[in-house]
């Protein structure tokens, strides 16, 4: 304890040079831990978003693409699946429920998702059913025709639009908001705002499939029909409900009665006979597709982690070299310890403690710094990548890294300690001037 205290005071007297190298250790720790934490959080939020879904069904193609665009709204679908297939899947005995998904429109950059009332019944995020901050789900337009004008917003959307219930909104066709693509002829009324889920749903706008379809009646060229009219007529009657059954869907999420039947259900869905104009279907196990996605990303994240580790090693070496250089100026100090009865071993320990203290403090600062960085970037990560980050104690993986860093710091501390040991043996009481 005595030597620890002395080592601390000695280090504090050289706080500027040691502080600088400690900052470099701290920064490298931040790089390392931030990459790790974002990776863990990304994986968690991706799998949370699909926690209740057993199969994601879409037109045959790349499973990861289907998952990315239909669940995470990253990228755009190239093919749709026929709406008739939804009915055929629903009728399979193994299938408990289905959620149809139709994408393509947006509200100020937030994706609009056409779906059915089943979405609110069956969707689970992190195992939790959906709940509302205010309002309620839109109604089934087949029962209540005014539901064609109803819209539900995710928590992020509502926050960013400062939306209140009963506010009116015009959606945009596609993702480019220009005058001719705004569905201004079909304003929606906000009926519900969801509680935050930490999934891409927070950034989504939900309307019924029928409403999605009614938006596009007469939109031949991807432009508003009234864009060609001399006089737009907002009082135009709504089309009849029978016309509004969609012909195509982006994807269907499927829940099964029993997870054990997932492979036979997949086989059944994939062997449905395709109609003449469409591709055969594909059913994807979200977990498997996510694993494939992580395989692709792994190269990049490993590269980042290796780089972070290398930077950490370099900055630990920086601490060591500063301490080594400093030792030649501290030969007098070492001679004083010797004169007071300290053996070379005690001096070894004092110097080792000092380096270890500096490194551990820097590592601790790095752990805190990582949390600060994550808090600062929370909004950005959620908005741009749909990653819900979390704060708190380091995860198991981060603990391993911190442990390894501490071991590295301990090993690095041995170098100046060993040098001090040699100096104290050779100098004795008479350091060179």
């Amino acid at each position: 304890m005595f030597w620890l205290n002395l080592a601390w005071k000695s280090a504090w007297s050289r706080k500027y040079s040691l502080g600088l190298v400690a900052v470099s250790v701290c920064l490298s720790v931040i790089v390392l831990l931030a990459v790790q934490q974002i990776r863990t959080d990304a994986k968690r939020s991706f799998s949370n978003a699909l926690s209740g879904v057993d199969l994601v069904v879409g037109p045959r193609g790349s499973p990861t693409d289907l998952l990315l665009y239909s669940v995470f709204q990253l990228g755009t679908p190239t093919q749709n699946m026929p709406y008739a297939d939804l009915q055929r899947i629903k009728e399979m005995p193994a299938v408990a429920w289905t959620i149809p998904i139709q994408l393509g429109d947006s509200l100020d950059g937030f994706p609009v998702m056409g779906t059915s009332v089943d979405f609110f019944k069956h969707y689970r995020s992190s195992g939790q059913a959906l709940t509302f901050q205010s309002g309620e789900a839109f109604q089934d337009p087949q029962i209540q025709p005014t539901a064609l004008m109803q819209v539900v917003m995710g928590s992020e959307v509502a926050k960013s639009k400062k939306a209140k219930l009963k506010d009116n909104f015009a959606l945009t066709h596609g993702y480019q908001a220009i005058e001719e693509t705004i569905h201004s002829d079909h304003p929606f009324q906000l009926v519900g705002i969801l509680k935050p889920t930490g999934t891409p749903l927070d950034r989504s706008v939900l309307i019924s499939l029928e409403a999605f379809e009614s938006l596009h009646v007469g939109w031949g060229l991807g432009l508003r029909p009234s864009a060609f009219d001399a006089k737009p007529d907002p009082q135009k009657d709504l089309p009849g409900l029978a016309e509004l059954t969609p012909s195509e869907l982006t994807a269907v999420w499927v829940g099964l009665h029993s997870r054990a039947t997932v492979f036979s259900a997949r086989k059944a869905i994939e062997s449905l006979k395709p109609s003449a104009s469409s591709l055969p279907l594909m059913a994807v196990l979200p977990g498997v597709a996510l694993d494939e996605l992580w395989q692709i990303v792994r190269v990049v994240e490993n590269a980042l982690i290796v780089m972070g580790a290398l930077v950490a090693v370099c900055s630990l070496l920086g601490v060591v070299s500063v301490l080594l250089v400093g030792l030649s100026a501290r030969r007098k100090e070492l001679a004083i310890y010797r004169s007071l009865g300290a053996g070379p071993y005690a001096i070894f320990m004092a110097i080792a403690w000092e380096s270890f203290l500096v490194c551990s403090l820097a590592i601790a600062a790095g752990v805190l710094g990582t949390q600060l960085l994550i808090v600062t970037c929370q909004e950005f990560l959620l908005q741009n990548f749909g990653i819900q980050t979390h704060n708190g104690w380091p995860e198991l993986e981060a603990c391993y890294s911190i442990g390894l860093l501490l071991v590295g710091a301990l090993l690095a501390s041995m170098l100046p300690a060993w040098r001090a040991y040699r100096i104290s043996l050779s100098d004795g009481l008479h350091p060179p001037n």
Partner: protein
Amino acid sequence: MTIAALELRNIEFAWPNQAKSLFVIPELSLQQGQTLFIGGPSGSGKSSLLSLIAGIQLPRHGSCQVLGISLSQLSASERDRFRGEHLGLIFQQFNLLPFLTVEENIELPSKLFASRFQKSTQIFGSVQKHIDMLCNALHLRPSLRGRQARLLSVGEQQRVAAARALLGCPALIVADEPTSALDEDNKLDFLNLLLSTASAQNTSVVTVSHDMRIASKFDHVFQMPPMETKDVLA
């Protein structure tokens, strides 16, 4: 019968890897409580002799007994411990740890060795009281005691070093040119304070110096034997 503070016989000292010896001392001894001045020009091996007495180095031949203990029979770590428990060392300058306060510097021996702590406590009631007494005797103002050691003048630093060396009542003070960094007036003042405070504790003092003018203050004077050759200086 009292134990001799110092008893050197037929000492021959040489640096490792050097064939020729640096000096040979047939006999040198000092009774407990007395003071000894060791004089000689630079390079005559005075500092090496101090290293022998402090147990940092061992002689090539001969017996070196300090406080009745033959140092060559102790292991390196036992000699370190012996030095810490029974000796007080004072250098020419840079005696203090600059990042500690004056008081923290003085109490270092009592923190490092329980025996030094106990002696101060037995004789003076507590370490704190011993420090009070030493500071008083060595003319260290109370206002200095909380100050960082690096802010002190050289004279003050030497007196703090003397207080530290005397804390815990070691049997022997070993001082290496303790007055060389001081100006003429301070030299004698410091020496008088050191010697009187040491004799009040019955502590022996061995001082090496090239400055023969202070030799008269000591009970005994020993002159280093002349160098045999010049090349051993290298």
